[in-house]
């Protein structure tokens, strides 16, 4: 067990994340140019989609329907649980609770990739169609959370959940991920072959650069941690564990493998820091970015990367092993 933990902590992607944090704390002038960060995120999302789409083509529909419905259901459920815990236990105001709910209901693509890589490393390969689940999980949570905010009358002047839905659906993450899935589905594994050296083999290395940048950004968030208060810190660790372990448990009922269940757990537990912040900033301008970014990027992401992912795999082995 400790061995597995160490393997995870010493993987290049976790180390790159740590290097980014350390460089920022040491006030290094290291910076990833914005176009490089954008290029990496376009590449990573498209690559995930392509691989997932090609795998999806080889999977019988009957096998994926269950996991897809489960994922959709969790995408609707987790923002609601998050919102209620924040309101009732945390006494948080409605707007900020809804904003956080959108983040914790949605999904962090990098957490997904890290979980998948961890599975490969430890011999628990996850299902090839998982990227389709990422796309499914990305959408409902943001809409549900904004609907909650709307019902309660906290919504900004002109924003509605319909326009937020449009924003999310045409946002670059869904377009690239969904577009990649469609491309992979249409072209199939043979069609993918000529582009594999670029999109498949280069993938893990490109991820290292991406995590270096995430480390630099996270470090800036860590400075806001003291303002966050103990409840937010606890919430950003405990809620993901509950969501994640719950998802692992449910995944067993729809026939997912140990690896697949654990990766789904990591996805459900993770908090979005790309699609959700953009949508929430426009639709709920009164919500404090300091709160939701610190929680999603400063606490939940590093926690999952270092400890959460091994935990969800342990849970999957326990429930399904």
């Amino acid at each position, binding site marked *: 067990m400790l061995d597995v933990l160490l393997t995870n902590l010493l993987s290049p992607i976790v180390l790159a994340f740590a290097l980014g944090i350390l460089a920022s704390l040491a006030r290094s002038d290291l910076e990833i140019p914005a176009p490089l960060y954008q290029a990496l995120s376009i590449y990573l999302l498209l690559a995930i989609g392509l691989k997932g789409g090609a795998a999806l083509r080889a999977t019988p529909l009957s096998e994926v329907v269950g996991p897809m419905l489960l994922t959709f259901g969790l995408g609707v459920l987790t923002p609601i649980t998050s919102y209620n815990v924040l309101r009732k236990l945390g006494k948080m105001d409605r707007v900020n609770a809804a904003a956080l709910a959108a983040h914790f209901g949605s999904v962090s693509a990098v957490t997904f990739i890290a979980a998948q890589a961890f599975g490969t490393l430890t011999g628990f390969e996850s299902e090839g169609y998982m990227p389709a689940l990422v796309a499914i999980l990305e959408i409902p949570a943001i809409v549900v959370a904004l609907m909650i905010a709307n019902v309660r009358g906290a919504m900004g002047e002109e924003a509605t959940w319909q326009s937020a839905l449009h924003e999310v659906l045409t946002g670059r993450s869904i377009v690239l991920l969904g577009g990649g899935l469609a491309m992979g589905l249409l072209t199939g594994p043979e069609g993918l072959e000529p582009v594999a050296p670029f999109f498949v083999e280069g993938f893990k290395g490109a991820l290292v650069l991406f995590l270096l940048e995430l480390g630099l950004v996270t470090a800036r968030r860590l400075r806001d941690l003291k303002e966050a208060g103990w409840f937010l810190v606890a919430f950003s660790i405990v809620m993901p564990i509950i969501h994640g372990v719950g998802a692992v448990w449910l995944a067993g009922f729809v026939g997912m493998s140990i690896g697949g269940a654990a990766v789904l757990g990591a996805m459900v537990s993770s908090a979005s820091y790309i699609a959700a912040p953009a949508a929430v*900033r426009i639709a709920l*301008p009164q919500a404090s*970015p300091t709160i939701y970014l610190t929680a999603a990027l400063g606490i939940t992401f590093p926690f999952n990367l270092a400890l959460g992912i091994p935990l969800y795999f342990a849970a999957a082995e326990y429930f399904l092993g």
Partner: protein
Amino acid sequence: MPKTIPLKLVTVVAEYLLRDKLVKEIGKLGVTGFTVTDAEGQGPRGNRAGVYEGRNVRMECVCSPEAATRVLKHLSDYYFEHYAVIAWVQTVEVVRGDKYV
């Protein structure tokens, strides 16, 4: 010297996320064109979203005094409170300025 006309130059610096929204909205306020550049910055409030906190857009509009007033009012009504925005106005001499009013 080619004929110039005095017009207003409105400069707006705002968080990047607002870029496309602002472009669309000022078009409806009688502004005939704009120029944008990528920018970074810090301000007295520092309240910002997005992974790239420092990323801003810097927008310039050459327009009539009336359009300038409408732009500033729009920013005040909808953006100043919750978003990272600064705006200032100057008078500039514009070549063939009649095209931009």
